[in-house]
């Protein structure tokens, strides 16, 4: 194998064979090392959370990656390719120019018995964001999430000072032995966590100027909510025919308590984008 090893011969066949072998070995090892190096670089540059989300998003079935403009019927059947980060999407920018994205102030909407206030922005992972007067952002779970989760067995909130990255896990909770990770709707640093009884969970100081461009607002929220209810029914109706929401019905207050564990786990994975 090497010149100093018994049996080595300095002739073309030997050198070509070993040359090819060593080249292959070097390429394989270098490629793995490159992947490791990039991984360390991603962590050093703070891109790890984005890539984690990109990887998870990549695993979602196309039905769960529907573009927000597909939900409203503007772009029929379009699947999001931007990891639900519309800030980078040129299509969204062009469509946004034609409409107002500002949340309708002080409006309250109700969808199948669930209050959906339109004075705030919504994230696809079922959190809402509301700007407070002091410039901070309040983050909470929307009504659908609240009803699906019910009363969690445990809730783990990030400590004040924790940096959040949009679409990376912000908090986790468990119910029926399953862990659900709730994605952060914004980039920022946690400044406070809610006391029991508050409707919000986290107060966050946004990183830089807060841009809600990737969040849902106004009329599109209703279209999204209807789609989410449909997804919930599909998730729960899968293997053994779980109770499903009939047209015109009202979602029960605590879905977890009336739903088989495995279906509830699947539904949470779908709703909260935990692939």
């Amino acid at each position, binding site marked *: *194998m090497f010149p100093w*090893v*018994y*049996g080595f011969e300095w002739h073309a*066949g*030997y050198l070509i*064979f*070993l040359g090819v*072998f060593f080249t*292959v*070995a070097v*390429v*394989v090892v270098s*490629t*793995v090392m*490159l*992947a*490791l190096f*990039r*991984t360390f670089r*991603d*962590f050093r540059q703070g891109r*790890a*959370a984005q*890539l*984690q989300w*990109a*990887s*998870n998003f990549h*695993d979602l*079935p*196309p*039905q769960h990656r529907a573009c927000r403009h597909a939900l409203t019927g503007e772009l029929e059947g379009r699947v999001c390719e931007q990891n639900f980060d519309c800030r980078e999407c040129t299509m969204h920018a062009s469509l946004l120019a034609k409409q107002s994205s500002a949340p309708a102030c002080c409006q309250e909407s109700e969808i199948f018995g669930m209050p959906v206030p339109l004075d705030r922005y919504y994230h696809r992972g079922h959190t809402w964001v509301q700007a407070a007067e002091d410039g901070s952002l309040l983050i909470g779970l929307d009504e659908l999430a609240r009803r699906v989760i019910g009363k969690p067995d445990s809730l783990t909130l990030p400590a004040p000072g924790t940096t959040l990255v949009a679409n990376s896990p912000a908090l986790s909770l468990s119910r029926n*032995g*399953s*862990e659900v990770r709730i994605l952060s709707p914004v980039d920022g640093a946690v400044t406070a966590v809610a006391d029991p009884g508050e409707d919000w969970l986290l107060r966050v100081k946004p990183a830089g100027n807060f841009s809600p461009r990737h969040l849902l607002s106004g009329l599109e929220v209703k279209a999204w909510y209807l789609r989410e209810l449909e997804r919930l029914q*599909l*998730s729960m*109706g*899968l*293997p053994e025919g779980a109770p499903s929401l009939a047209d015109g019905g009202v979602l029960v207050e605590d879905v977890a308590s009336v739903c088989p564990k*495995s279906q509830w*786990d*699947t539904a*949470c*994975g*779908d709703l909260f984008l*935990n*692939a």
Partner: protein
Amino acid sequence: MHSTHLIARGACRAPLPRFLMWIAPWVALFALGAYAMFLCLSQGLFHTNMDNRYAFGLWIFLDLTVIALGAGAFFTGFLLYVLHKKELKAVINSAVVIGLTCYSGAMVVLAVDVGQPLRAWFTYYHPNVHSMLTEVTFCITCYLVVLAIEYVPMLLKNRRLKLVPSFLVFEWELHKLMVVFALIGTLLSFFHQGSLGGLFGVLRGRPFAFREGLAIWPSTFFLFVLSAMAVGPSFVALTTWMVEKLARRPLVKPEVYDTLGRISGKLLLGYVFLKTVDTLLWINQTAPDRGFAAHRFYQHSAFGTWILFAEIALFGLLPAFILFQPKLRQRRGFLILAAVMACAGVTLNRFVLTIQTMALPTLPFDRFLSYWPSWQEFAAFGAIAAYAVLVYSFSYRYLTLFPQEREIALAEERS
């Protein structure tokens, strides 16, 4: 931690007791084979029915066959990452697991067959570059490493493991470089599939196997490569169909089967054509030049001309025709039947080259040799099959082998 928390969300898998019942007989078979392998390694190859004349037996046949069937891994990777056949993304993970089990199983049984595992490194440290087997050894070892690397992203996507941030980021970065591994895998597979065929083609003392060729490579070199490429997609389609039947749910979209069948059909047709040309050349030129009329090779009752017909026409031309015809291959029953026949064809080809070559007399005082494997050989064979089933079963249960599974389930529910 519940075992279900290792299973991907939304993936419908059997309850743990049923899964344990499924794997129990395979574990038993594996244990029996492991004991047989231990006997062979610790006491010697007298436990087998091979001897100096019949040096290639059941195990080499197994090696050749599983390596041919496992070619779906490299070829699917090549089609997906290099030729961008995106629809094959639905089966690439399954193909990698198949390849990994096939190659690692082949390596284990080779180690038992060669014996002296403590001196296995001699092959690498003192290579005889004039031997086709050296090329096979190096390529299979390297490719097994490549397959293991290709398996890592799948493993890191396990529901529990993916919660570790560094695992998921590493998986993402490794996945982006997968084209490199696909190309390396293709290069390695081309040479070791070819060399496995070539090592029979260069047997000058065995006129049944000896073939003329191109430069240093006999025709069997190229035929082995082509047959493995042709059958790999068929085997991937076949295993996917079997898993669908066992799981009782569709795992891939119909167009995936169609693509696999179409590619397999075209390559199989090319292979059958070249195999026919090669056989005619061998009958009319190569064998007579070595002093043998080809019909003499088929005078022994066990290996009549039927075997030639079965290999080329029944398990070659017929499945190629079915897979080549869009209307036929779009009917699932025909496609699976053709895939089974194609796999049987390549298995028969490897059997003929391994067993028939050894059995036929080559000298005037030789006689037709018969060989029946010992129970240890059968048990080791069974252990490799059991190992493959176990690795695949665990992978299917705890990893995402078929990314379209959830999408199809949701679409069915919606409809």
